[in-house]
């Protein structure tokens, strides 16, 4: 707006007009003099709104981010190197700690890769129990995300509901595997143990509770006007950009890519025995990502229910030698983990331990888009965008 067309100056007399113009000019000059190179805002490594020790360095121009980059490595544990000095069965106790909210799901792709190299297949009952526990860890993981989502926007209640209901699922995982967070239950050729008595009925009750939790969150959060205005149209990732950065899981499906590894690949898990819907959303914004996760949690409870009804009888362990030597070869197996595609590229040399394991974790790719995505957003939106991308620090740093 030039000063001559300024509606304020047009109403004033000529003398007043001159002084108004002069004051405007002085303001403009002052603004030029005060213009700085921008401010650098350091978020984290320890910050209540980051999930762990992620540090984000953002260069700001006023309220807008000009440049932002996450700084990782505060939790780098070098698992890829450590796997090289361990035997195949020992590796599961390491990789449990990658995505610590859905630990069991980390074990499955590695075990499947080892089984693929050994040409061993777990008995059907073990496959079904694996799938059930896989989905339970998804529910435990994503329900915490749904609760945490509210906290990022100032709503405290949802996180209490999430912790309450996640506890039921963790109790189930604990009673079946013995470990709440790190089950270490998966074995090459099957599972450590069968399910405890009464577990199936208990699980059905919990699944009902979790569906109620999803309904609660949906009315509490997703219908909330503040939530919608903080997430709709913010942090939009178009389909081709999402693919280029290798986004996976709900982040990819929220950008309209209809791809779910549970449905779209042949894998020795029981997903082909159940009927479930893969949700997609065309918008690609923060809201879409959150919404997809809500639907997936609901869908996961239905998968578990169906699997519990049809679980076959039989052994839970195939015949494998006591000392496991994996034949020479290379194998890639990935599964649809709570955070997205998690895969292991395992190279074996016919030895007791792997020669090389490349861990492809979902969060690393999901968060690598942030320098692109955060450019131009407002400071409060950094938090909601990061929350909606949903990452676990251990899954970035490995």
């Amino acid at each position, binding site marked *: 707006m030039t000063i001559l067309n300024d509606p304020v100056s047009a109403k004033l007399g000529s003398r007043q007009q001159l002084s108004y113009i002069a004051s405007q000019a002085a303001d403009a000059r002052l603004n030029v003099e005060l213009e700085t190179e921008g401010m650098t805002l350091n978020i984290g490594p320890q910050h209540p709104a980051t999930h762990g020790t992620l540090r984000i360095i953002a260069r700001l121009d006023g309220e807008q981010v000009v440049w932002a980059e996450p700084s990782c490595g505060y939790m780098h544990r070098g698992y890829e190197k450590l796997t090289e000095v361990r035997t195949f069965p020992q590796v599961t106790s390491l990789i449990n700690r990658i995505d610590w909210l859905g630990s069991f799901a980390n074990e499955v792709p590695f075990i499947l890769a080892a089984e693929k190299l050994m040409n061993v297949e777990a008995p059907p009952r073990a496959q079904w129990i694996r799938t059930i526990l896989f989905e339970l860890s998804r529910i435990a993981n994503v329900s915490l995300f749904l609760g945490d989502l509210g906290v990022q926007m100032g709503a405290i209640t949802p996180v209490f509901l999430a912790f309450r209901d996640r506890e039921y699922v963790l109790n189930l995982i604990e009673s079946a595997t013995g470990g709440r967070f790190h089950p270490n239950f998966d074995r090459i050729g099957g599972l450590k143990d069968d399910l405890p008595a*009464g577990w199936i009925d208990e699980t059905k009750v919990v699944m009902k509770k979790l569906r109620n939790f999803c309904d609660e969150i949906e009315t509490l959060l997703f219908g909330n006007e503040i939530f919608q205005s903080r997430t709709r149209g913010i942090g939009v990732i178009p389909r081709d950009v999402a693919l*280029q950065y*290798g986004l996976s899981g709900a982040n990819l499906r929220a950008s309209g890519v209809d791809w779910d590894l549970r449905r779209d690949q042949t894998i020795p898990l029981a997903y082909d025995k159940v009927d479930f819907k893969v949700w997609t959303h065309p918008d690609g914004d923060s809201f879409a990502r959150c919404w997809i996760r809500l639907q997936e949690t609901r869908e996961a409870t239905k998968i578990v229910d169906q699997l519990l009804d049809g679980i076959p*009888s039989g052994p839970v362990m195939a015949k494998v030698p006591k*000392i496991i030597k994996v034949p020479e070869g290379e194998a890639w197996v990935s599964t649809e983990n709570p955070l997205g595609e998690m895969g292991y590229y395992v190279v074996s*040399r016919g030895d007791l331990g792997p020669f090389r394991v490349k861990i492809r974790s979902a969060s690393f790719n999901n968060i690598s888009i942030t320098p692109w995505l955060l450019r131009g957003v407002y400071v409060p939106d950094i938090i909601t965008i990061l929350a909606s991308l949903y990452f676990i620090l251990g899954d970035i*740093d490995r």
Partner: protein
Amino acid sequence: MHPPRLKGEVNPLSSPAETTAPIVDAPRDAMVAAIRTTLGAAVVDTLVKPGDDIWLRVTTESWCASIQALKDTHSFDYFCFLSAIDWMPSPYGRGEDDPSEPAPVRDTVIRPGYTGGDTRMQMLVRLVNSVTHLGINIKADVPNDSFTIDSICTVFAGANWHEREAHEMFGIGFTGHPDLRNMYLPSDFEGYPMRKDFPLLARMVKPWPGIVDVEPLPGGAAEDEKDGSSEEGAS
């Protein structure tokens, strides 16, 4: 405390998974044939494991161009990961040896994996077609003298972080990469941890507790496994 276990008393609905692997994999074979025509001389070797995966090895010079062609012509538009493999066997073994004893003689011959290889380091990229969900593992040799290869950041923006990781872990240089800062390690860290000749000190300074696993089990019968190796198993 665990409740008592069920003994498989549940209603059997599913049929046991059939184990007959397909011998011919038509879509993957067709894809490999199409890739060979597109890339021409850039292809060094290919491998199809029926029902499993495709491996493709391209020349070092055509690394970036081949990936561009795979993305443009064959719609491998999903970037899964980029990494490297150091094919040199570790001179330290796997670390389970007793350090008080003399080190055993180790095989130091560099043997490449699928689709071969002439160098110690190899790049490994996995791309997936987001419509057909067909994946491909692409390898390329990294020259032994320079450890440098072209960056594919211009093809897949997501490769940026993966190349930074490969740079600090394997010491591979990427020409054309905008910013090869360390991601995980301190900037003054010396050495490349994922190289096989980088020792894992915790394993060097004391014998590995896991060594007990390969001792004969007390009272265990070792006669049914006679493969002549150092470890003995009870079935």
